[in-house]
């Protein structure tokens, strides 16, 4: 368990001669993160899929009253919504002032009417990548399905044609090439969560690895 806050830690293993780069305290930066500026590193573990918008679809099923699949046009017919703010990657970079355009996940969930017993979701990609999330983390205006970045189509290596974004959690939860959500009454580890990463991934609590 780390007791570090704002990059300051209470452990005593000072590294001889290490000063680090000059730093200004930035309250917008979660502990242990740095501002990547204009860079946007790509860290997917699989081959970037060649997925045309016409072949993209998004499904919600599991513990819902009416499972449903949306194609590209049907998804675009939902009320537009955007996110502007920061994103935080577990590999230590954060990026500020990003703009994503798409639809709030609430609009999709509204259409399928989740059962009261649903507590978690597994979000999965057209590549088979998965991430688990508490349902509460993807409702209430905190998650989006997006197809635009900075006013242009989302590039394939960043998850285009469409990805999930859950910007208040580490970005591995923001499944690229999103294919669907399954609602469950229990938590089930996704791809990285089964590889030693944290179940929830809150950057402000520095929940990087299992046990943090």
């Amino acid at each position: 368990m780390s007791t570090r806050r704002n990059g300051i830690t209470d452990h005593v293993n000072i590294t001889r001669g290490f000063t680090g780069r000059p730093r200004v305290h930035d309250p917008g930066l979660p502990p242990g993160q740095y501002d990547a500026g204009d860079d946007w590193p790509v860290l997917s573990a699989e081959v970037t899929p060649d997925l045309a918008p016409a072949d993209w679809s998004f499904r919600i099923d599991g513990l819902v009253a009416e499972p449903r699949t949306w194609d590209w046009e049907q998804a675009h017919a939902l009320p537009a919504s955007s996110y502007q703010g920061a994103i935080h990657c577990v590999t230590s970079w954060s990026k500020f002032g990003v703009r994503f355009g798409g639809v709030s996940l609430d609009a999709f969930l509204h259409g399928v009417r989740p059962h009261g017993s649903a507590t978690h979701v597994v979000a999965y990609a057209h590549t088979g990548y998965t991430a688990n999330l508490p349902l509460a983390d993807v409702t209430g205006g905190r998650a989006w399905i997006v197809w635009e970045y900075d006013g242009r189509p989302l590039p394939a290596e960043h998850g285009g044609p469409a990805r999930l974004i859950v910007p208040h959690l580490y970005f591995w939860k923001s499944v690229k090439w999103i294919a669907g959500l399954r609602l469950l009454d229990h938590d089930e580890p996704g791809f990285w969560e089964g590889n030693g990463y944290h179940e929830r991934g809150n950057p402000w609590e520095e929940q990087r690895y299992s046990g943090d």
Partner: protein
Amino acid sequence: MTEQISGRTPRRTPERFAPPTRFAVPGRIGVNERTASVWRTATLTGIRPETPRATTFRFAVPGWPGHVPGQHLLLRLTAEDGYVAQRHYSIASAPDDSGHIELTLDRVEDGEVSGWFHTVARPGDRIEMRGPLSGFFAWPGDRPALLLGAGSGVVPLMSMVRHHRARDMRLPLRLLVSARGPEDLIYAREYGAETTAVFTRSAPEGVAVGRMTAAHVAPFLAKQPPSGWEAYVCGSNSFAEHASRLLVAAGQPVERIRIERFG
């Protein structure tokens, strides 16, 4: 649960959800979550230059739980005022019982952590690390391996090559490694018949200069082991994109391509 379990249905844990897609790349090994969350203090015991820009650092790590080739660790440096910088590094050495591991670091322009290693570090220095991490890019030596790396992306692949050699494995293993020129080729002296080097800017007499192409990759897919290859790709994102496309074009199944991007 209040439901009655019928006599014929054995009680079992719910089956895990697997997406109805065709790409799913399974993990390779389970990661021990307890060992992965412990910070250990390692002592730098040796420094060995590999190229003008890359250097290998050897550490004694008390209690190191052992790793599988391909895995990485998280390393942190702490300044006097408590400021911490942490970065991921692949493990270059093969698993052994020496209580030591090796990392190879590229010197990144203005790099906070790699800069400290290349200019300040000396034997006896203590730094902290945690791991090994990620069971995804790991290669336990169970399947034929086709390895594609560029620059310092060859580091986790070298752990596999060394493991293959140390255990005298008969299983096929091939390494295709890209470097700017011969002087930038990390581990150059260690490669054997399993390795083909590709040079992008300058090459020895008689060797072509240029990017990795379909012609480099196709022969491996044309003559593959009966069970096919498990492909591992490592390097910058642009290399990873390029190399993984070459593999797919040559017929390597996407669900058998594992990619580690250094960002």
